[in-house]
Each structure stands twice: as structure tokens, then as C-alpha cells.
């Protein structure tokens, strides 16, 4: 076995070690460890990605001495390693971008805990991406949930604690459903390892004995993960959690935590139950309807908001709706569009959150719309970042959002039954997106008396400007080099089965 094959396991273990050791250190050391750790994970994952690209196949890594159905296993293919690299980059940028705000909003002697939480969150994201075992996935879902809860409430005020409690309750309901579903699957197949479950399910799906338990298991796991990733009717926890937590947390929660669960769902579709059985089970039609509803109602709620952060948060509901709508199409192209939209949304939403904080900073700290008038002139780099993010969300060509929208439309054309609703809702949702995002862009570029608030130049916030520039570059990379990324996604999906 090549030495590269060790890298996924090593990166998970390194993150866990980093978290454990940081818990005994002061905040500066914890911060350095965190940054080094994320960089290492990016390098290791990228190396593994190049390796899988070169070999053209995925590999299985046995965690311990005992192979497949007895011990734990992780599995790395092209899609997994690509996602791990991407998640690492977004996490690093989000943390760097919100670092200044973190020191204003969090008690000084608790900041080291923030980095501990982030280390463990990264480890759980990596484990969710790489895992080949349903129970390992469940264990790391727990870590992910608790870490996300800590990220919300580390900024201690009434709203964040309320948001954290709400998130905890909703999220635990989701965890419970996932656990029940894993129990049902174990009961009817006798395995916890993904590939073994799939083999057994293929053999039992020919008979009708376990038709009902299997359907309920699929429904429970879909609903459980949908609650955790804030699909439309289950999104009640989202606006407060994203809107009031410290900005790095909001960026990480919206672009990574929910995406980790969605990626796990894709993995379950392909590697546990099998996409054909999912397609036949009609559960995806429910996801399809919820996704369509989310695309419209999320945008409508965002339009009504007078608070920039909460507006961006509600826009997440709409974007998650897009992703589930792609699942609901039930075709390979639909799935590719959804995975591309995961990347688009992760890159764009964190950019929007990070740049919104720069805009509010030059508006006297107020997040209200009226105060933000003309803030694009006072903090230029944040204004540019927000504009790029908005245009990408609306779906202008050359930005990442355009590619995912066109992929969704193409996918819809290949599915005659669902074509019309997808195209109509896609159009309505794009218009709604344009209404609330461009309204904000126009407002931040409406000139007002400059003497009201002090402007911030790029020189005074070098790190922040670099982060925004990096985010913009990622956005253009996804928008202009999309064919290559889509090729990688397609090859990665083929490796799944």
C-alpha cells in the first residue's frame, strides 16, 4: 500500500489530537495549532486527491487489524478527497476572516475553546466525508452536532443561547431519527459497514419481506439529515443560529456543517441503499417538493428581513432547497448539479457572511439595512466581496452560481415529469434572489454623507482583504473552470458504485 493511503486516516487523527492538546493551551498557541492543522489537512487531502486522480480508483483503508465487516474502515475516492480539501480551504478562510470580530465578541479566556471546537469539527467533517461505516458516521454526527452548538453559543448573549438551545433540540431529533434508521438497517441486514449493507439490501430487495422497514429506514435517515441541514420546513433553528453567532461560526455552520450532512446523505444514497432503490422508494419525491418549497419560501422570508445577517441566513434556506431539489430529480445529472451547488453555496455563503461583517463594521456596528447605506464606499473590499457574492447567488455568468443554475436547468430537461415545476420555480427563485440581493447591493452603493461613519481602508485590514480576495478567486475558479470540476464530480460519483 502506498504511503498516501494513510493520509485520510492521519488527517482525522491529527485533528482529534490537535483539539485534545489545544484544550490545555492558551489562546495564541491554540490558534497557531488550529491554523497549522487546517493547512496540514488541506495539503494531505490535496495530495490524496492527486493520488486518486492519477490512479483513477478509490481505496479502502482498514482502521486496525481487522478487515471489512469486523473492524472499522474508511474509504477515499476522488469526490471524498476533493470535498475534504475544499472544506479545509473554506474553514481556514472563514476563521481568518472572522478572527478580528471573534476577539470583540467572545470572552478572552474562552477563545481557546473556540479553536478546540473547530479542530474537532474539522475532524468530524473529515470523518463524515471519508467514513465507510454507518456507525462511525453516527459517532461523528454527534461530535459535529455538539461542536456546532458550541460554535453558536460561544458568543454569549440571549439570542445566541436561545438559538443554540433550539438548534440542539432540532438537531437531536434529527440524530435520533438517524440512529433509529441505522438500527432498522442493522436489523434487516446484520451489517454496519456501507458496502456490506448495500450487498444485503440488493439481495433482499427482490423479495417483499422487508419492504416496509426499508422504506421507513430510508425516510427516517432522509428526514433526520434534512433537519440537520435545514431543509425548508425544518429550518426554524437556522436564522437565529446563523444571524447572531459570531461571524466565523455563521460562515462555518452555513457552508460546512450543513454540507457535511448533505454529503453523508449522498454517500448513503449511493453506497448504503443504492440509488435505484432510493429512486423507486418515492422518498426523493418528498425531498423534491420540500426543496421546491424551500427555494421560494426561503427567498420570501429573506426579502422581508431588515437585518443583513438574517437575510443571508434565510437565503441559505433557499439554497439548501436547490440542493435537495437536485436530489429529487433522481438522475445522475441532477446529483452532479447538487454536488456542484454544494461547492458554490459553501464558497459564496461564507464570502457573503464575511463581507457583511465588514459592512456592518463601518455602519456603527448596526446590522440594519438603513445604516448600511453607502457602506460599500466606506469599506471597499467588503463591498466588492458582497457584490461578487450577491451576483454569484443571483446567477450571473462567470460566477459560480450561474453554473449550478444552468446545471439544474439541464438536469430538469432530462426528466420529463419534473421539468416544468423545476424550470418555473428556478425562474421565480432567481428573480426573488435578485430582488433581495441586488436591493442590498444598490443600497450599499448609494452615496450618503461620508462624515457619518469612519471609513476603513484596505491597508488597515490586510488579512481581511486577502481572505475576501481568496474567496473571490475561489468563486471565479468555480465559475470559469467549471468543466474540470464537473468532470471530477462525475468521476467521483462513478467511483461510488
Amino acid at each position, binding site marked *: 500500500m502506498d504511503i498516501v493511503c*494513510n493520509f485520510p486516516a492521519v488527517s482525522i487523527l491529527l485533528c482529534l489530537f490537535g483539539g485534545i492538546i489545544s484544550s490545555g493551551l492558551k489562546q495564541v498557541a491554540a490558534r497557531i495549532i488550529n491554523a497549522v492543522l487546517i493547512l496540514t489537512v488541506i495539503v494531505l487531502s490535496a495530495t490524496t486527491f492527486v493520488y486518486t486522480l492519477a490512479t483513477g480508483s478509490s481505496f479502502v483503508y482498514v482502521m486496525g487489524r481487522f478487515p471489512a465487516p*469486523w473492524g472499522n474502515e474508511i474509504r477515499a475516492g476522488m469526490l471524498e478527497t476533493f470535498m475534504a480539501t475544499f472544506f479545509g480551504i473554506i474553514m481556514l478562510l472563514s476563521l481568518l476572516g472572522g478572527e478580528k470580530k471573534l476577539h470583540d465578541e467572545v470572552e478572552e479566556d*474562552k477563545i481557546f475553546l473556540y479553536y478546540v471546537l473547530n479542530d474537532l469539527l474539522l475532524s468530524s467533517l473529515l470523518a463524515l466525508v471519508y467514513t465507510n461505516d454507518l456507525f462511525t458516521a453516527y459517532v461523528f454526527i454527534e461530535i459535529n452536532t455538539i461542536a456546532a452548538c458550541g460554535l453558536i453559543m460561544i458568543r454569549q448573549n440571549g439570542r445566541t443561547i436561545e438559538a443554540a438551545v433550539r438548534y440542539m433540540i432540532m438537531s437531536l431529533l434529527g440524530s435520533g431519527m438517524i440512529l433509529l434508521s441505522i438500527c432498522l438497517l442493522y*436489523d434487516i441486514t446484520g451489517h454496519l459497514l456501507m458496502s456490506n449493507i448495500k450487498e444485503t439490501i440488493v439481495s433482499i430487495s427482490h423479495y417483499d*419481506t422487508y419492504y416496509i422497514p426499508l422504506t421507513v429506514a430510508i425516510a427516517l435517515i432522509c428526514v433526520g439529515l434534512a433537519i440537520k441541514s435545514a431543509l425548508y420546513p425544518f429550518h426554524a433553528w437556522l436564522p437565529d443560529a446563523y444571524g447572531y453567532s459570531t461571524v466565523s461560526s455563521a460562515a462555518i455552520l452555513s457552508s460546512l456543517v450543513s454540507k457535511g450532512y448533505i454529503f453523508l446523505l449522498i454517500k448513503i444514497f449511493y453506497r448504503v441503499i443504492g440509488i435505484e432503490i432510493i429512486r423507486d422508494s418515492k422518498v426523493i419525491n418528498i425531498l423534491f417538493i420540500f426543496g421546491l418549497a424551500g427555494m421560494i419560501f426561503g427567498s420570501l422570508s429573506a426579502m422581508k428581513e431588515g437585518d443583513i445577517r438574517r437575510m443571508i441566513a434565510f437565503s441559505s434556506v433557499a439554497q439548501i432547497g436547490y440542493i435537495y431539489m437536485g436530489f429529487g430529480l433522481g438522475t445522475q445529472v441532477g446529483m452532479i448539479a447538487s454536488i456542484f451547488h454544494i461547492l458554490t453555496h459553501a464558497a459564496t455563503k461564507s464570502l457573503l457572511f464575511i463581507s457583511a461583517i465588514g459592512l456592518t463594521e463601518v455602519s456603527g456596528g448596526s446590522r440594519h439595512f438603513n445604516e448600511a447605506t453607502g457602506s460599500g464606499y466606506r469599506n471597499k473590499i467588503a463591498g466588492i466581496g458582497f457584490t461578487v457574492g450577491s451576483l454569484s447567488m443571483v446567477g450571473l455568468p462567470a460566477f459560480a452560481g450561474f453554473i449550478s443554475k444552468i446545471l439544474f436547468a439541464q438536469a430538469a430537461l432530462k426528466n420529463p415529469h419534473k421539468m416544468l415545476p423545476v424550470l418555473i420555480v428556478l425562474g421565480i427563485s432567481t428573480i426573488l434572489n435578485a430582488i433581495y440581493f441586488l436591493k442590498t447591493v444598490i443600497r450599499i452603493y448609494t452615496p450618503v454623507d461620508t462624515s457619518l461613519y469612519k471609513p476603513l481602508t484596505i491597508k488597515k485590514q490586510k488579512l481581511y482583504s486577502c481572505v475576501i480576495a481568496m474567496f473571490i478567486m475561489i468563486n471565479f475558479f468555480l465559475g470559469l473552470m467549471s468543466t474540470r470540476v464537473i468532470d471530477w464530480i462525475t468521476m467521483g460519483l462513478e467511483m461510488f458504485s
Partner: protein
Amino acid sequence: MSKLRFSKRDTKDFSLKEWMDGTDDPMVTGDIGMKPQRIQKDDFQTVMKHMRDYEEVERHLYDSDKNTGVRIFNKLYRISSIIFTMLLIGVLLYVVSYLPPVGNASNPDNNVVAQRYIENGLEETGAVNIVSGMILTYRAFDTFGETNVLFIATCCVMIMLMLEEKALKEQEETEQNHKFEPQNDQILIFAARVLCPVILVFGIYIILNGHISPGGGFSGGAILGAGMCLYANAMGFSRIGKWFNENVYKIAKISALCMYGLIGSYFYITGANGIENHIPLGIPGHILSSGIILPINIAVGIEVACTMYAFYALFRRGGL
């Protein structure tokens, strides 16, 4: 307003920078004639009146006596949540009737996996207690994750409840310390004096014998933690602080988790790469046997005890 340049736009030197500054915006300078927004200025009285009105509206909005809409919503909310829960229970019970019967030999879960755990478990792990062998050898990675769940849970409780040292000292000085517990309760102190050593020794016994008899790190650690909670409860935090304070807690927790992590990593990486394992399995049934299980059990036991005590101390007074 005065700082904006209200001159005709010079088409020659249209520069990006000026456009960015807003000094050369065609909307402002040209003939399109959009005026910059007027800033609304309210005097203090009006602002206060708005705030009072807002509060009044808020109060009436969620007052179920005055607002029939809220009342109906609350009722509907309750009824629908009960219906939803009943439906979920119904669906799950319905599913249970389709599952294979318990204890049937031909069930899908009686397969090669369980067979190897039972038949080869002793030989491959060296543990008489098959459950310990299974969770700490075959599925050691899951258990490491589970131990980290405990660790991150304490981190979150610390974020929520940990007080600064200054506040903690003030709280002790103002006799808040004994608000919830009897002070110098002779019965409690005597009982704790008798029970604590027994409980602690029993906890250690269960941890060390995890691979031989039922028990192991998780259950033994819980007993140890319970013994420490009893001790703190009876003797007070100043007494337990002499041998278990924040520094000891940190050292114990970090070294235990790191020990588990290092042993685990050694086991995973050597196992995956096919390198020989140098940890001897020993003779089954002896206390020093079963390879990695004994040290991992000790690490898990310390971590669980620390977690239990930390939860108690944090909820009780906001510090360790």
C-alpha cells in the same frame, strides 16, 4: 453632501477608483438626477415614543389573553405536535411488526460478523470479556470517537457555565457556596468517609478488570466520577481542590485522551499497513493481558471520571 463633487462627468478620466469612491457616480453627477438619500433625523422624544410603541406592540402581540390569533395558534401547535408524535410512534410500532422476531436463529444479524466476534474474539483480542474486546479492538476507532464526544461535551459546558477565577472567588467569599447543600452535615460527612474509599476502589477495580469481567472504562469511570461527586458534596470544594483542581483535571484529561489516541493510532496505522504489532496479548484471564485493551480502558476510565466530575462542578459552581 458637500463632499460629493456635483460637476459634469468628465468622460476622459473615468477611473475605477473614483467610481469606487462614489465621487464620479453618473447617478449623482450626471443629468439623471437621483439625489442622495436624505438621512432621517428624529429628535429624542420621537425616538423614545417609537421605542415605547414598539414595546407596547410586542407585549400585546404575544399576550394570549388579548390576542385570539396567538391563542388559537398555541392550541393548534399543541394539538399538531401531539398528533405528529402519535403518528411517529404509530409508524415505528407498525414497522416493528415487520422486523425479524427477537432471538430467532435465522435472523440477518446472526451472521459472520457476530460469529467471528464470539468464536475468535478471545484468541484475537486476548479479552475474556467479548464486549470489551469488540469495542476496544475490532471497533476501536468508533470508541475513540465516542470518547471525544465526552470531551467536546465538557468543552461546551465550559463555554456555557465557566466563570472567571475572580467571580469564582467572590462567590466563595459571599457564602453562596453552601446555598444548595447542607454545611457540615455530620451524617453526610461520615457516610462519605466510609463510602468514598470503597466507591473509588471499586471503580478502579472495574476499570482494571474491564477485559476479564463485565465492566470497563466507561462503567468504571462513571463509578469513579460518582465517588468524586459524593466527596465534593460532603467535604466541600476546598477539600477536593487539594488533590483534584483545574490543573490536575487538565493534565489527567489530556494525558488520558492522548494515551488513547497514541495507542489507537499505532494500532490503526500498523494494522492498515500490515506492520507487525508489538503489543503482546498475554495469557487470557490475567490482569496484564489482552494487548491494547487494558491501557485504553484506563484512559477511557480517567476521561469518563473527569467528565462526570467536571459536569457536576461546572453545574454546581461554575468552575472546577
